[in-house]
C-alpha cells in the first residue's frame, strides 16, 4: 500500500478487504408534520450487504414532530449495535 495522504486510508483499505462498511443515510416519512421527510443516518458504519434490508425497515417508519438531531429512531438495527438517528430537527 502506497501513496495514502490520509492517515485513516490504511485502516479503511484493510477494512475494505475484510468487509465493506458504509454509513447509511436516507430519509423517512413523517406524520403530523408540514415537512414530508426527515433525514436520518446510521450512528456507525454498517456492512454494505445489509443496507437494502435496513432501507426496508426505514420505509415503515413514520417520524412524529418533536424529534431533535441525534434522537434514536431505531435502536440496534438487526442486532448490529448500530442505531438509526435523526440528522435534523422536526
Amino acid at each position, binding site marked *: 500500500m502506497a501513496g495514502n495522504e490520509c492517515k485513516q486510508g490504511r485502516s479503511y483499505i484493510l477494512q475494505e478487504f475484510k468487509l465493506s462498511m458504509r454509513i*447509511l*443515510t*436516507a430519509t423517512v416519512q413523517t406524520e403530523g408534520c408540514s*415537512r414530508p*421527510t426527515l433525514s436520518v443516518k446510521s450512528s456507525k458504519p454498517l456492512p454494505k450487504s445489509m443496507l*437494502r434490508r435496513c*432501507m426496508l425497515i426505514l420505509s415503515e417508519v413514520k417520524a412524529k414532530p418533536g424529534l431533535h*438531531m441525534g434522537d434514536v429512531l431505531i435502536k440496534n438495527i438487526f442486532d448490529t449495535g448500530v442505531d438509526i438517528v435523526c*440528522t435534523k430537527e422536526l
Partner: protein
Amino acid sequence: MQHVDVAVIGAGPAGLAAAVKARASGVKKVVVIERTKYPGGLLEQCIHNGFGLHYFKEDLTGPEYAARFVEKARDLNVDMRLDSMVLNISGDRRISFVNKRDGLVTLTAGAIVLAMGCRERTGPSIMLAGTRPAGIFTAGTAQRYINIEGFIPGKEIVILGSGDVGMIMAKRLSLEDVEVKAVVEILPYVGGLIRNEVQCIHDFEIPLMLGHTVTEIHGRDRVEAVTVAKVDKNRQPIVGTMKRIKCDTLLLSVGLIPENELSRMAGVKLDSTSGGPIVDETMQTSVPGIFAGGNVVHVHDLVDHVTEEAEAAGASAAKYIMGKLKSGIRKLNLKAGENIKYVIPHTITGEKEVILYARVKEPAMKVRVKVGNIFNKPLRVVRPSEMLKIHLSPRELEKGRDGLTELVVSCVGKEQQNKKINIS
C-alpha cells in the same frame, strides 16, 4: 433607510460562515438575506455524509454540518432574514429585497459578502437533441424531490454526467429501489470525487458508460428511452455505436455555474474560467466593500473549503468596515499555466502567507505543481474533480520579492494517464 454593517447574501454554508466570522470579529450589525424558508442552503438536501472531515475532523451529513453554523449564528445574534429575495445590489452597496412580512425593503451596508452559491447547468445549455417530454430533471432537482419533498422522480433512470451530484443520486435512487440503468459520461474519466465513484457507482453495480453521451431523447408526454452513443476524441458521437436504453427519467449532472446575477448588477468583474467574480487574497471583488466566498466564486468539491474561503471573506468585510483592510502595495497577478484551468484568488500582495485554490484541466500522474519559481511540489495524481490547495508560506513568498508582477501556477508532468479504478 436602514443601515447594516455587513450584509451577507445567502444563508448556505458560505453565507453562514461569513456572517459568523464577521460577528466574531466584532461587527455589530450583521444581516443575512436568504431566499428560502430555512438556513443551510443546499446542505439541507444533501442528507449523505462526508461533510466536515477536514473542518471538524468528523464525518457529518449535510444538515448536521449546516446546523453547527446555524447554531453559531443564533448564538451570535446574526439577523437572519429568511424567505427574502434580493432583487438588486448597487455598486454603492444598496440592497433591495422583498418578503411577505416586510414587503419591499432597501438597506445600505458598510460591506457586502456575496454568498449565493451556484446553479446547475440544464439541458438547453448542453444542446440535447430530441423531444421535450416530462421526466427530464437536473440531478439536484431530483435530490430535492426525494430528500425534501418525499417522492421519487421515476422508476427507470438514466443519469447523464458523472459529477458528484449525479453519482450521489445514483446511490440514493438505488437505495430507494429505483433502477438506475446507466451513468453516462462524455469524458473518459469520472467527473466527481473517486470516493463517490466507488461508493455510489461500483458499490451498486451501476453501469458506468465512460466516453459516451446521450444523443437523443424519446417519448412524447413522458420520457420513454434515450439513445446513447460512444464518442470519439473530439467528443463527437460515433455512428454505429448507438444504443437505445429504455427509461422513464433522465437526470442531468452536467456541471455547476456560479450564480452571477446579483454580482453583475453590482458591477462586479467576473472571470469566465472560474465562473465567478475576480477576487484578491482578502476575497474582495473589483468593487470596494463587496466581498465574495464559496461556490459563487468558483465551484468547490468540499464544503470545508467553502467554509474557509467564506470565513476569509467575512473577516475581510469586518476589517473593511473598521477601516483596517489595507490594500497591499504590490499586486501579483496569478496566471493559470500548463494544465491549470484557473487559480483563486486572482491577485495576491505577496506580503503575507496565502492559500491558493486551483483546478487542473486534465487528469495526470506523477506531476509537479509549481508557482513561479517559489513553489514546487510533487503529486502522485491530480484530477479536475479534486481541487488543489496550495499554501504559500512567508518564506516562499520572500523568494519572489523582486520585480515580479505575476506568478504562473502550473502542473507539469510526463505521464498523462486516464486513471481507471480496478475493482476486483
